[in-house]
């Protein structure tokens, strides 16, 4: 073997000698200790060396593997020349590191918690590897790499490395660490249902398996605690039973779990996944409840954390059904989708489809049969309000995967309803608003999976509903029955928006509930259900009128009265002139206010009231062409709190023009008393003999002194006016 020289003249291979010797020494020490293992006590300083095992072991694994592979690929002597030196170094390093690893492993194995079969084989394989490699290095020159013996040795070394490494992995990570992901997937597929779940086996144990058992098992029972069976778990470890309900902290298990994360004694230890809050709550509730291994989830109180935990873990089992069928082609689904027939997968990645139909006018029976290519995937169909006919149920019964079928308010009569018996997976069936009958519904109870049937508003009599409800297996929802309930009708609506009726306007009433009878009066009296006028079409009134109306219907109480005051306005004035100016605060639209046909509400700030206080209200109202009038109406306001009172005196004058006026009528309105309501629209009518009139003059004097009961006693009152009507 040729070796390059270093500047100081010593060859590189000198260090190899040192290393070789050191490895040889360690192997000797190792074998010696093995021989006297039962007397060996690990000194404290050496424990750290032992714990370096997981770090060191990877070197010999890799290096020895590389060397073995090199041996395997060497074909003939010549090809070894250029890398022989490197290979030699590899084996030497492998030899040294393997003995260091074996030695540290040996020390580590004397710590607690490793005492089972897996350790036995791991330990001995490690030692064998270490010893074999030093022997190999020693006799290397007799084993040329291109000959068979060397190749056999390298194969066996490779096998030992793999097995030893795997066993070591099992020791730290748990026996099924490698295969766990595959097993997990298969476990999820057969989740137990809520009904048959056991608290320990289905809730507690999975947590232990995930987070505890890797250190507390037959192979590696840290703290002498093993959890793989109920008995061993209940027995506990070095610190006694895991739980003790007589203690405030419920025993060592929960104490350790509850310790702060960075506490040395916290379980699971640092670096491993801690338990979640929900998991801790579950364990706590289970232990408090006596740590019973036979406790069933369904018998647990619904308020208990065990119950809510179970709901979260097991919830999927009922609603998120796993479907056996495979998904339909996306193109097919796309092709069959339209704006009136929506086909959607239940969730991303789910093969199951749900179909909804919309728009009655566009529906044809073929819309259902066209879905046949997807009948292996459709699990829900909503046909409510579609004109589905009896014979369509035959088509529907071919969709054997259906779980939910909604036929509310379709045109089916029920004669073909028993066809649906073929839907052996059906769970929910809605038949509300159809004409199905008792016997037809009962025929469906043979469907084994059927759970809910909705039969509100069908042909069923109340007695038949009671018969159905006796079923223990199926829940029949019969819904709300209104026929025995008597309610108040809501009042009718007086449709006229304006309070002002011009010459040809009729009064219109309406009510939204079909079949109501509307009765009304125009004289202000209360309408009743027998004598008052029945509304059949819009009607006219000849003068100012207070319309009162009520609605009546069989099976209902009569409504409250609705009322509205109408001003009749036969003649529209052409212009007006205010003789006295309105107060600056309430000018409204000046003279025009009086004949613009706009009635103000009771708000004083509406801007539609003319207000007078210091002056009398005085105005002229002109007609370009004289009219044959016989009455005039003033619309005014009372707002006691706002000092707005009826005028003390009103005078109405009339004549052909301003010059030829005569007094037609005088009125002294009644004044409000303390008890009078605050605000009201006031209407003052003035009838006179019919005569040709071209001009009116109206005078209204505000009350000069408010009465003593009023807060503003002695002050002047206001007069508010917004409209004048001539008939």
């Amino acid at each position: 073997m040729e070796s390059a020289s270093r500047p100081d003249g010593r060859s590189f291979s000198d260090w190899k000698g040192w290393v070789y010797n050191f490895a040889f020494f360690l192997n000797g020490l190792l074998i010696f200790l093995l021989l006297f293992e039962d007397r060996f006590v690990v000194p404290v300083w050496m424990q750290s060396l032992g714990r370096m095992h997981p770090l060191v072991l990877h070197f010999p694994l890799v290096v020895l593997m590389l060397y073995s592979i090199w041996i395997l690929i060497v074909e003939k002597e010549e090809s070894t020349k250029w890398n022989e030196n490197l290979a030699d170094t590899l084996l030497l390093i492998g030899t040294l590191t393997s003995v260091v690893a074996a030695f540290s492993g040996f020390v580590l194995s004397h710590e607690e918690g490793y005492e089972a079969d897996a350790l036995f084989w791991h330990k001995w394989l490690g030692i064998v590897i270490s010893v074999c490699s030093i022997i190999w290095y020693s006799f290397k020159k007799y084993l040329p790499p291109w000959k068979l013996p060397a190749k056999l040795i390298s194969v066996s070394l490779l096998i030992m490395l793999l097995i030893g490494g795997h066993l070591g992995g099992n020791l730290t990570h748990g026996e099924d660490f490698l295969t766990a992901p595959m097993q997990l997937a298969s476990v999820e597929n057969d989740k137990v249902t809520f009904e048959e779940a056991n608290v320990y086996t289905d809730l507690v144990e999975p947590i232990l398996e995930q987070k505890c058992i890797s250190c507390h098992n037959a192979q590696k029972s840290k703290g002498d605690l093993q959890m793989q069976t109920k008995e061993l778990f209940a027995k506990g470890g070095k610190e006694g039973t895991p739980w003790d309900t007589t203690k405030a902290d419920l025993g060592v298990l929960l104490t350790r779990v509850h310790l702060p994360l960075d506490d040395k004694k916290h379980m699971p230890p640092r670096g491993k996944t801690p338990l979640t809050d929900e998991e801790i709550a579950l364990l706590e509730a289970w232990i408090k409840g006596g740590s019973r291994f036979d406790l069933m989830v369904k018998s647990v109180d619904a308020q208990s954390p065990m119950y809510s935990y179970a709901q979260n873990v097991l919830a999927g089992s009922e609603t998120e059904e796993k479907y056996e069928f495979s998904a339909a082609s996306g193109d097919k689904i796309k092709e069959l989708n339209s704006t009136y027939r929506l086909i959607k997968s239940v969730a991303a990645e789910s093969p199951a489809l749900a179909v909804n139909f919309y728009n009655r006018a566009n529906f044809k029976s073929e819309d259902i049969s066209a879905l046949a290519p997807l009948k292996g995937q459709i699990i829900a169909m909503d046909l409510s309000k579609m004109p589905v006919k009896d014979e369509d149920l035959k088509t529907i019964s071919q969709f054997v995967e259906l779980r939910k079928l909604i036929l509310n308010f379709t045109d089916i009569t029920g004669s073909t309803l028993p066809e649906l018996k073929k839907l052996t997976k059906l769970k929910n069936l809605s038949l509300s608003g159809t004409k199905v009958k008792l016997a037809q519904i009962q025929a469906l109870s043979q469907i084994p999976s059927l759970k809910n049937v909705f039969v509100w508003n069908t042909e069923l009599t109340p007695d038949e509903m009671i018969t159905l409800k006796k079923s223990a297996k199926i829940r029949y929802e019969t819904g709300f029955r209104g026929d025995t309930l008597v309610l108040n009708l809501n009042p009718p609506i007086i449709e006229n928006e304006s309070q002002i009726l011009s010459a040809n306007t009729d009064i219109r009433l309406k009510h939204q509930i079909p079949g109501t009878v509307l009765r009304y009066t125009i004289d202000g009296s209360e309408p009743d259900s027998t004598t008052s006028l029945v509304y059949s079409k819009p009607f006219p009134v000849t003068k100012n009128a207070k319309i009162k109306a009520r609605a009546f219907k069989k099976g209902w109480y009569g409504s409250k009265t609705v009322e509205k005051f109408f001003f009749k306005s036969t003649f529209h004035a052409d212009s007006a002139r205010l003789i006295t100016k309105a107060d600056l605060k309430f000018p409204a639209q000046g003279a025009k206010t009086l004949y613009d046909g706009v009635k103000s509400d009771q708000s004083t700030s509406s801007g539609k009231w003319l207000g007078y206080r210091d002056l009398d209200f005085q105005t002229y109202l002109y007609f370009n062409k004289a009219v044959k009038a016989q009455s005039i109406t003033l619309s005014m306001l009372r707002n006691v709190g706002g000092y707005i009172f009826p005028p003390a005196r009103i005078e109405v004058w009339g004549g052909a023009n301003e010059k030829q006026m005569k007094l037609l009528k005088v009125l002294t309105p009644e004044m409000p008393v303390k008890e009078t309501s605050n605000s009201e629209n006031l209407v003052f009518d003035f009838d006179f003999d019919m005569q040709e009139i071209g001009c009116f003059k109206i005078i209204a004097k505000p009350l000069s002194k408010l009465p003593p009961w009023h807060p503003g006693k002695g002050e002047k009152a206001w007069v508010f006016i917004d409209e004048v009507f001539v008939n």
Partner: protein
Amino acid sequence: MEKPIFDFGLNTNRRHFLSKLSLGLGSAALGSLLIPDMFKGGGESDVNDLMAGLPHFAPKAKRVIYLFQNGAPSQLDLFDYKPMLNKMHGQDLPESIRGGQRLTGMTANQAKFPLAGSVFNFAQYGKSGAWMSELLPHMSKIVDDLCIIKTLNTEAINHDPALTFFQTGAQVGNRPSMGAWLSYGLGSENQNLPGFCVLLSRGKGNGQGVYSKLWTNGFLDSVHQGVQFSSGENPVLYLNDPDGMNREERRKMLDKLSQLNQNTFDEFGDPEVTAKIQQYEMAYRMQTAVPEITDMTREPESIVKMYGPECLVPGTYAANCLLARKLSEQGVRFIQLYHQGWDSHGGLPNEIKGQCMDVDQASAALITDLKQRGLLDETLVIWGGEFGRTNYCQGTLTKDNYGRDHHPRAFTVWMAGGGVKPGIVYGETDEFGYNIVKDPVHVHDFHATILNQLGLDHEKLVYKHQGRRYRLTDVAGKLVKGIIV
């Protein structure tokens, strides 16, 4: 040195190249086996990558009807029975209970915070034994279908931020609303109707505004915006073709229009243009779909009695509940109702009576109605306001009259159907009804749970906007496992 390189170049001939290529192909093929979604469609954009595979898991609920009680109903007068408040009526709220809670400007200056016991009687109902106020006789009958959560809590103390928070997951505006998120995540079921509809009604109590930012699409595509229905006779305005125009002509006109729009899109690439084309198309289909839904004449009389006669008067809460059921039945993903008038700062006993008259019967009827059609299991119904009301009185307290201010720390919301546990009361408040003592549910948690019921993982439903991935639950939210089946 040059020669070997030259030789090497010569040695790499076609055969070598092809054989090496086969190895490369082989490795790619193996790689593709390990990445199952590798060759599936999509992937055109970042968004599609993020949104691949929805719903994330099989949903319990397909649709949501959210009965929003706008203005914040008083949980202490409806659901959260606190006899202690009656016992201590008029005494001051202990500071130890208030614990420095931020107050609104309306009561911050009050010298005293006298506790106000509810004037209404409570009783237990159903198998769950839930306490319900006499104000809710109809809801009391269906408590075994309800999941009553007493421990909702929020951060906002005023209406606008609180409402916005509830609807969009953030107190500031312009984030997408919950319904928009769902429309984005799950799409529309019925392509002939919008996926997200909004219905408004107004009670007689003290009202607070609702505004379109509550049903905004935010930074999501405009097609996800909530469509507000009109509260008049025609819920969707301008849907009819003008006289003399038939369907074919309308079709032709739309085809031409979308061609023009497509040209614009090709030129500028603005996605709003495609959104516009889609909306025209939907409007066209809505022309036949909407009249079918809004036609109330086919509803049987028992339905009218169940929801109450008001349900045929357009614009009322009852009518909106009935319409919500019809829309939901027709596959509208998210229907948002708002009923205004719950903001009872004063005169609460009187105001709340009117509000309950408006909503009690119809809310309960909606649940019963969905149930009798076999649709409750796939429809999630939610009832509640943006926060709760204080246990102390705002303004003057008398024996039978009081007002209550806003209270964010604990309030009641109920859910029903859609895979939520029926017949349970979740969470507890202290005996003053002021603080949560068990199982708090934050608004973010509430959102996470709703998304979960629809088969969406709230941490995965994301949209990348201006360099950040946004979620409805922002960076928070925990699934409330205790309320789901």
